[in-house]
């Protein structure tokens, strides 16, 4: 289809209207090469790497990370961090191609491997504001990642079971501490204490406006109070759930 008679702004406007219709956006890509850049903004806004196969397809399709549509990704889900970090090591900074991600979700438990390093994810996107981790690694790795994200506002940590030692001996010292001004969510079967303690020790403190917590036992209630006190100057919404298996009498 020729679009030489239509101004760029009109074409962009048409594509913008189709932002939530991926099939239509794909058809736009086939209609004209000149439509491709605008459609990429929406087609690649949310990317999921939940299996190694998906990662391989991406790498084959976009062999040059610098020119891949990763630049358009705003929301990134990684469910196979072992393979993603391997790709990053192979191609020298592959993860950093996703430099405009605002929301990042990381699951370490499905392909659990104690050697997974989260260092390649450190500040991979300077724009990152929300981080959600389902964690099975030493917590120090998660908190080193948190410390590397200066604009981080929202943090959610879910833990089913920690397989390794809580601390693996490395402390990342951030030049700029994370903002932590949005929502903090915590769901930990191992108790809230170990995570809250680390959170309260973060340089720069915590300034959350919302806490969304699950508690299991009486000890958790004390840590919940510690968390409330820690962000008492900013806290506006307090959302707490009693776990059905909790031990409170």
């Amino acid at each position, binding site marked *: 289809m020729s679009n030489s008679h239509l101004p760029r702004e009109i074409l962009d406007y048409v594509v913008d209207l189709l932002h939530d219709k991926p099939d239509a956006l794909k058809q736009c890509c086939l209609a004209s090469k000149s439509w491709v850049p605008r459609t990429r903004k929406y087609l690649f806004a949310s990317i999921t790497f939940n299996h190694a196969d998906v990662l391989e397809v991406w790498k084959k399709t976009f062999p040059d990370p610098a020119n891949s549509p990763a630049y358009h990704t705003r929301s990134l889900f990684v469910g196979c961090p072992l393979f993603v970090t391997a790709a990053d090591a192979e191609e020298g900074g592959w993860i950093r191609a996703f430099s405009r991600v605002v929301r990042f979700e990381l699951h370490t438990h499905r392909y659990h491997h104690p050697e997974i390093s989260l260092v390649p994810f450190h500040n991979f996107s300077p724009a990152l504001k929300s981080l959600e981790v389902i964690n099975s690694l030493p917590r120090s790795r998660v908190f080193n990642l948190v410390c590397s994200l200066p604009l981080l506002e929202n943090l959610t940590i879910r833990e089913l079971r920690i397989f390794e030692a809580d601390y693996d001996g490395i402390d990342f010292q951030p030049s700029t501490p994370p903002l932590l001004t949005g929502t903090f969510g915590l769901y930990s079967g191992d108790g809230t204490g170990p995570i809250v303690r680390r959170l309260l020790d973060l340089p720069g403190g915590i300034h959350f406006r919302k806490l969304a917590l699950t508690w299991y036992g009486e000890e958790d209630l004390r*840590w919940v109070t510690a968390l*409330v006190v820690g962000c008492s100057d900013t806290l506006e919404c307090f959302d707490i759930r009693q776990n059905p298996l909790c031990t409170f009498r």
Partner: protein
Amino acid sequence: MFRYPTKSVVYVPLVPTPGSSTSLELSFAPACEQLACIDLSKATRLKNMIFRCEGLNPQWIAMALQTITSKHRDLQQITIHAPYHRCPSTPESKTPRKAAGEDGYRQWMDLDSLLVQLLESHAIRTEVVHDAGNGERKSEMCECMGSLLPKIAERYNPTRCMR
């Protein structure tokens, strides 16, 4: 520097605003000093509080609400999520009172009184939320929560379905 929690938790009693009813003498109040409880007294900018109850013993909620003071001037809403799976499915099989047990039932009555007191002392809304849909279970849940929080149900009729 932040101080980590110790076994003793400071108990801050509810301070009524001028003109409001006097503090209630709740049956759990003495125990609050010994038991762990969530202390919200320092979080005076709180606007919304949501308590998701999964059991028929809401003492932990009442203990947390007791730490609300007259300094919580921004408080707008308290939401209680009903323990859907713990509420008896039919009134014939078991009443909420029997299901909760005497201790549990007394805790609900205490929570009910405390909520009323908070509503009178602070200009806030209270919601009791369940996820029973709109079928038969909805009326059962409303009835169940109505018997566990009778004053709130009678005066403010706050129950709604979250779906």
